[in-house]
Each structure stands twice: as C-alpha cells, then as structure tokens.
C-alpha cells in the first residue's frame, strides 16, 4: 500500500532508533567510499543514490548516529 520503505530488514517491529543507527552507519561508510572514488566530499544526493534511498532519509538517519550532544555542548562531526 502506497510507498512502503523498508530500511534495512523486513522486521518492522525493530525500534526506529536502532534501525536508523544501522542506516546511519551505512551512510558513514558510503561517505568514506565515495570520498575516495570521487576525490572530494560527496553530495547528499550522491549518497542517497548509492544507498537507493531519498536524500531526506540520508539526513534523518545521519542524525541518529550523531554523538549524543547535551544541551551544554556542540559536538563537531
């Protein structure tokens, strides 16, 4: 029905936080790989195409693997 996007596995009962972290790690690896092959920092669409997801979902999953930042500190990626 509609567009159902399955992120990693078909286990839909997996908690979002865990699923997004797995995808976030894939994004990290994709960014490293593409940086090497392209010789520059990849764009968000290049990563999205590589993982066959939408650019907006790259943004969503990447946030899940951001080091926990308390309100009192900004962590640089």
């Amino acid at each position: 029905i509609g567009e159902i996007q399955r992120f990693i596995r078909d286990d839909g009962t997996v908690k979002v936080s865990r699923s997004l972290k797995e995808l976030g790690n894939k994004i990290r690896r994709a960014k490293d790989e593409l940086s090497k092959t392209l010789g520059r920092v990849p764009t968000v669409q290049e990563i999205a195409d590589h993982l066959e997801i939408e650019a907006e979902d790259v943004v969503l999953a990447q946030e899940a693997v951001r080091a926990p930042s308390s309100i009192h500190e900004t962590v640089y990626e």
Partner: protein
Amino acid sequence: MKNEMHLEFSALSQNESFARVTVASFIAQLDPTMDELTEIKTVVSEAVTNAIIHGYEENCEGKVYISVTLEDHVVYMTIRDEGLGITDLEEARQPLFTTKPELERSGMGFTIMENFMDDVSIDSSPEMGTTIRLTKHLSKSKALCN
C-alpha cells in the same frame, strides 16, 4: 509532557519527502517501531499529496500546514490546506474514488489514512479548504531499559 510543532511549506511536490521526514523526525522522539514510523510517513505523503494536487491543483503559491502534538504515547496530527475543498466528502472517502483519474490516482488515500491511524476526521469546504485530523496511539511495549 506535551511537545508540539507547526510546519508550513510551499505546495510543491518536491516538498513531500521533506514533510515526511520532518514529521518522522519529530515522532522519533517517542521511539516508535519502524512499522509505526513507516505508517505515519505514508499517511503524511497521502495527505500532503492530496493538498498539493487536489487542494491547490499544483499552484506553488499554496501553503500546506502540518501540526503535530506528542502527549504521552499519542501522536495528534493535523494536515491542512486552504485550497478548493471537497464537495462530496462521503463520496471522496470511498476506496478507489478519485476526481483525477487522468493522473492515475489510486483513490486510496483516505483508505490508507484510516488503516494506518486510529482516528481520522475531515473538515472541508470550498471557503475553508481541507483539514485532516489524525490520531495514533503508539505501542508502549518497549524494553524496560531505555
């Protein structure tokens, strides 16, 4: 504790993914399951697409309004447009009914919303546009250590 957000954006189909991810990111705070998140994202897609192609007939000057309130484990969502409105609501809600067959619409938007949400209510008129109110109770069977 109550948490709310309100979003307004141009009625452009390229904003559909943005709307889905924005709502998903807000709701993710309640740590739903992937199924629950996917269902809510699909409902947002359906309602936002309706606002853009039916409410505004793709006039990019139109605005789509989304509000989400999180309280305990319940998601209260409103998706609104100030477009053309629905003339026959009972007819519009029927599965497979569409006023735009030339666009290959499935006519299943409202059916999907009703399946994936616990409550769907629609207010619509030519003067006012269309407001969809949706509620979803997220499952609480979570791991004890969070």
